[in-house]
C-alpha cells in the first residue's frame, strides 16, 4: 500500500437561529445544506458501509452546525421547509406533464425530496449528528472538531484566553455530542500562528490541517513537502493540503463542477416562474428566492441554458470520479519514488457544502470515488490518525502564520471592510478574562457570566468578517457582530454593577442558546500555560 488519501469534508455554517421571527431567510443556509449536502452524503456513506466497501473519510462537523442540527426549533422549521419542498415537487410533476424536456426532471425531484423526507423522519429520526456519529463508531468516518464558533485564531493571538476558549469549548462540546475525545481539529479557515499548537496539545488534540504553504514554508525547511505531516514543537501534527487534488475539484477552469452537463446553480423556478405559482415557496414578503428546483445545466459560458438531464449528469460524475482516482493513483506512484519509500499522505480537503449544494452531483461523485478507490492497490482512503499510527516518525517543524483564504494569510478577515471588529473582540476578551476570575455563587450571576461567554464566542465567528469582505449579506453580518458585542457589554456592566436584568438575560439565553453546557471559567488566565 503506497499511501493514504485523506478526503476531508469541512462542514460548517454560522450560528443562525432567530426565534423572534416566524421565518428568517438566513436559516435557509442550514435547510438547503441539510437537503442538498448532509442527507445525501450521510445516506450514501451509510449505503457504502452497509455494502462492506472498505473506506474511511475525514470530516469536520463544526460546533455551531452540530448545535443547530440538534436544535428543536430549527428542526421543526426544517420539517416545514421539507414539507413545502414535497408539496411543490408534486405540483411540478403536474405543471410539466406536457413538457418532455422538464417532466423527467420534475419526477426526479419528486422522488428526491420524498426520499429526503423519509431519510429525515424515518431513517435518521431528525438527528443527523447521531447518523454521522454512528458512521464514526463503525469506523467509516473520523469526525474532527473545529473552533467553537469558527473564530479566526491568528487575529486574537494576543488574547490567550480567547484562543483557549475557542478550542476548549469546542473539545468539550465534541465530547458531549460524540461520546469521545476529539483526536483532531480543523482550525477555522486553517488559520494557524506559531504557538497555537500548545493550546491544541492542552486538549490532547493530535493533529490539525494547514494549507500547503503551512508545510512548505515551515521552519526549518521540510523535506517531504505536503505529503508527510510535521510535528510541531508540542508534538501535535500538521497536515498540509495537496495542491493537485484541490485544484481538480475547486478550480473554475480545471475543476469538475464546471462541466457543462452539471446542474446550473443559478437558474431556479423561484426566479423563472409566475408570481402566483411560486408565491407560497419564496419569501413571505413576495420577494423571490431559490426554491431548489433547477431544470437547466451549466451548458457553457452563455446565458442560454439547456435542460438538465440528471442521468447524464450522474454518469458524468461517475466518469469524473474515475478520473480523480486515476490521477491519485499516478500521484501516489510518483510520490513513492520521490519520498524514498515512505508512506505518502495526500490531504484533499473541501468545504462539505461544495458537494450537493454548489455542485449538485457532488455526492454522486464522492460515492464513486469511494467505490473506485476500494478497487485499486495504490492507496487507501483513510484519516490522519491512520497515517500517524502507521508513520509515527515525522519531521519537527513549525508552520508560519497562514490560512487557506485568498492570499494565504489573514487578508480576508482583516481589511478595511472588517478591521473595526477586532478592537471590540479583543476588548471583550480582556473583560471576559477579568469576569472569569469571579467566583459566582448566585445562580443568576453564573448564568450571566455563561451568557457573556456565549456572546463573545458568537461575535468571533469568522463568517461575519468574511461576509463583510465579500459584500454579500453585509447588513446581517454587521448587525450580528454589533448585537453580540452590545449584549456582552451590557452583561459585563450588569454583572459588575450587581444588577442583572433577569428577564432580558432569559431572552438572550433563549435566543443565543448555543453551548448550554459552557463553563465561563474557561476564560480564566492560566499562568505558565500556552
Amino acid at each position, binding site marked *: 500500500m503506497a499511501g493514504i488519501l485523506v478526503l476531508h469534508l469541512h462542514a460548517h455554517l454560522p450560528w443562525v437561529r432567530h426565534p423572534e*421571527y416566524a421565518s428568517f431567510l438566513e436559516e435557509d443556509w442550514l435547510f438547503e445544506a441539510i437537503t442538498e449536502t448532509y442527507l445525501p452524503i450521510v445516506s450514501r456513506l451509510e449505503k457504502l458501509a452497509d455494502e462492506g466497501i472498505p473506506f474511511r473519510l475525514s470530516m469536520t462537523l463544526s460546533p455551531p452546525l452540530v448545535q443547530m442540527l440538534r436544535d428543536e426549533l430549527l428542526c421543526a422549521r426544517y420539517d416545514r421547509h421539507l414539507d413545502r419542498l414535497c408539496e411543490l415537487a408534486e405540483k411540478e410533476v403536474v405543471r410539466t406533464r406536457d413538457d418532455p424536456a422538464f417532466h423527467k426532471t420534475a419526477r426526479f425531484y419528486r422522488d428526491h425530496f420524498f426520499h429526503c423526507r423519509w431519510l429525515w423522519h424515518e431513517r435518521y429520526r431528525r438527528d443527523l449528528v447521531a447518523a454521522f456519529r454512528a458512521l464514526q463508531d463503525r469506523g467509516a468516518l473520523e469526525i474532527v472538531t473545529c473552533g467553537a464558533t469558527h473564530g479566526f485564531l491568528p487575529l486574537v493571538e494576543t488574547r490567550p484566553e480567547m484562543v483557549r476558549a475557542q478550542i476548549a469549548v469546542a473539545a468539550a462540546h465534541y465530547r458531549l455530542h460524540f461520546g469521545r475525545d476529539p483526536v483532531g481539529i480543523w482550525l477555522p479557515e486553517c488559520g494557524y*500562528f*506559531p504557538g497555537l499548537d500548545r493550546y491544541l496539545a492542552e486538549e490532547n488534540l493530535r493533529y490539525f490541517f494547514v494549507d500547503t504553504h503551512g508545510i512548505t514554508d515551515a521552519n526549518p525547511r521540510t523535506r517531504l*513537502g505536503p505529503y508527510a505531516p510535521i510535528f510541531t514543537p508540542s508534538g501535535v501534527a500538521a497536515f498540509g493540503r495537496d495542491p493537485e487534488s484541490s485544484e481538480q475539484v475547486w478550480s473554475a477552469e480545471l475543476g469538475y463542477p464546471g462541466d457543462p452537463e452539471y446542474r446550473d446553480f443559478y437558474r431556479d423556478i423561484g426566479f423563472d416562474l409566475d408570481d402566483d405559482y411560486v408565491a407560497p415557496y419564496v419569501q413571505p414578503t413576495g420577494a423571490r428566492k431559490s426554491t431548489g428546483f433547477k431544470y437547466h445545466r451549466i451548458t457553457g459560458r452563455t446565458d442560454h441554458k439547456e435542460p438538465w438531464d440528471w442521468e447524464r449528469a450522474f454518469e458524468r460524475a461517475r466518469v469524473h470520479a474515475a478520473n480523480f482516482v486515476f490521477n491519485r493513483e499516478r500521484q501516489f506512484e510518483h510520490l513513492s519514488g520521490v519520498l524514498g519509500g515512505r508512506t505518502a499522505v495526500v490531504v484533499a480537503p473541501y468545504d462539505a457544502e461544495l458537494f450537493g449544494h454548489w455542485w449538485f452531483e457532488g455526492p454522486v461523485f464522492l460515492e464513486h470515488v469511494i467505490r473506485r478507490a476500494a478497487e485499486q492497490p495504490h492507496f487507501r482512503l483513510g484519516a490522519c490518525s491512520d497515517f500517524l499510527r502507521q508513520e509515527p516518525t515525522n519531521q519537527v517543524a513549525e508552520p508560519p502564520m497562514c490560512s487557506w*483564504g485568498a492570499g494565504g494569510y489573514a487578508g480576508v478577515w482583516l481589511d478595511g471592510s472588517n478591521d473595526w471588529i477586532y478592537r471590540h473582540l479583543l476588548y471583550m476578551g480582556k473583560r471576559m478574562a477579568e469576569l472569569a476570575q469571579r467566583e459566582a455563587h448566585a445562580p443568576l450571576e453564573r448564568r450571566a457570566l455563561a451568557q457573556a461567554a456565549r456572546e463573545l464566542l458568537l461575535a468571533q465567528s469568522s463568517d461575519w468578517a468574511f461576509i463583510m469582505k465579500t459584500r454579500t449579506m453585509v447588513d446581517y453580518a454587521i448587525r450580528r457582530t454589533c448585537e453580540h458585542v452590545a449584549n456582552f457589554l451590557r452583561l459585563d456592566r450588569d454583572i459588575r454593577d450587581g444588577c442583572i436584568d433577569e428577564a432580558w438575560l432569559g431572552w438572550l439565553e433563549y435566543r443565543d442558546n448555543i453551548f448550554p453546557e459552557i463553563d465561563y471559567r474557561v476564560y480564566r488566565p492560566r499562568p505558565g500555560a500556552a
Partner: protein
Amino acid sequence: MAAIVQNLERTARTVLRRALTLLERSRELATRIAEGIAIVARVAFPAPPAPARHGPVRAAGKASVRPHLSGLGEPLPEGHLVARIAGEEEAYRAPLPLVEEKLPPPTEPAPGPPPLPPAYFDGAFTAMARDPHTLWVYWDFAPEEVRAAMESIEDPRTRLRIHQGAHRVRDLDFALESGSYYVNDLSPGEVYQAEIVVVGRNGERSLRFSNPVRLPNIGPSPWADDRFATLPWDARLPKDLDAFTWPLPFGEGLGSAAWRRGGASDLPYERWRRSEAGSAAWGRPPPDREER
C-alpha cells in the same frame, strides 16, 4: 409579607446602585469635558460602517416575518455560500444579485445595528500580522495618557515608528484619530514592533510600544535542519513537550519516543506550490513560489 418587603429592599438597592454608578460616570465625563482633553481620543475609534441597505430589523418578542427585500434592498443569502465555496469573484459574476454592488441604490435609509461605544479608552495598542508584508496596528488611549505624552512638547504631532529589532525602520506621520494603521512593504519573516511617538519642535516623547509581531515568511525556510521525532499514537503527549529539544522527555506513556537527526536527509528538497484554488479563492492563478 416579609418576602415582599425583602424584594422591595432588593429592588431599591439595585436602583440606588445603578443611580450611583451613573452619577459617577457623569462626574467623570464632566471632568473630562471641563479639562478639554477629550478631543483627541474621542474620535479615535471608527464605528462599524453604517448599513447601506435595509437591515433585518423587527422588534424582538412576538414572532413576526422578517422584512427581507431581495432584489430591492439586500443581496440573496446564497451569496455567502457561493463566496465561500466558489470564491468572491464567482459571487460577483453570478447572474443573481448576490453582492451589494449588484443592487440598485437604497430608496430609504436603513435602521442601523445597535450602537457600540466610540472608544473604550483602555490603553490598547495592538499589532497584528496581516500577511508577509503588512502589519496592522490599532490603539485606544485614554485622553489623560495622550495629554500626558503631549505635555511640554511644542506644536505636538504623532508619529508611528516601526522597529525591527534594535533598528528603527519606518517613521510615519499619522492622525491619532484614525484609530488604526496598515504598515505595508515590510519584510517577510521579520519581527516588528510599533511605537507611537509624540514629536514637537523641542523634542519627542514615546507614548507607547505595541506587542512585537513576527510576519510570516514566504517560501521555503532558509533554516535547513532535519529533526525527526517518533511520537507513538497511543501515548498521550507529554505536557509542555518541546520536540525541538533533545532528548525528548520519556515517561507518561511515551517510553518509545525517539528523536534523531536526518531520516530523510538523502532526499532532495522538492518544490511544492500552494494552489490558490479553494475556499474564497476560486480561479485565481497560483502564485509562483520559488525557493530562496
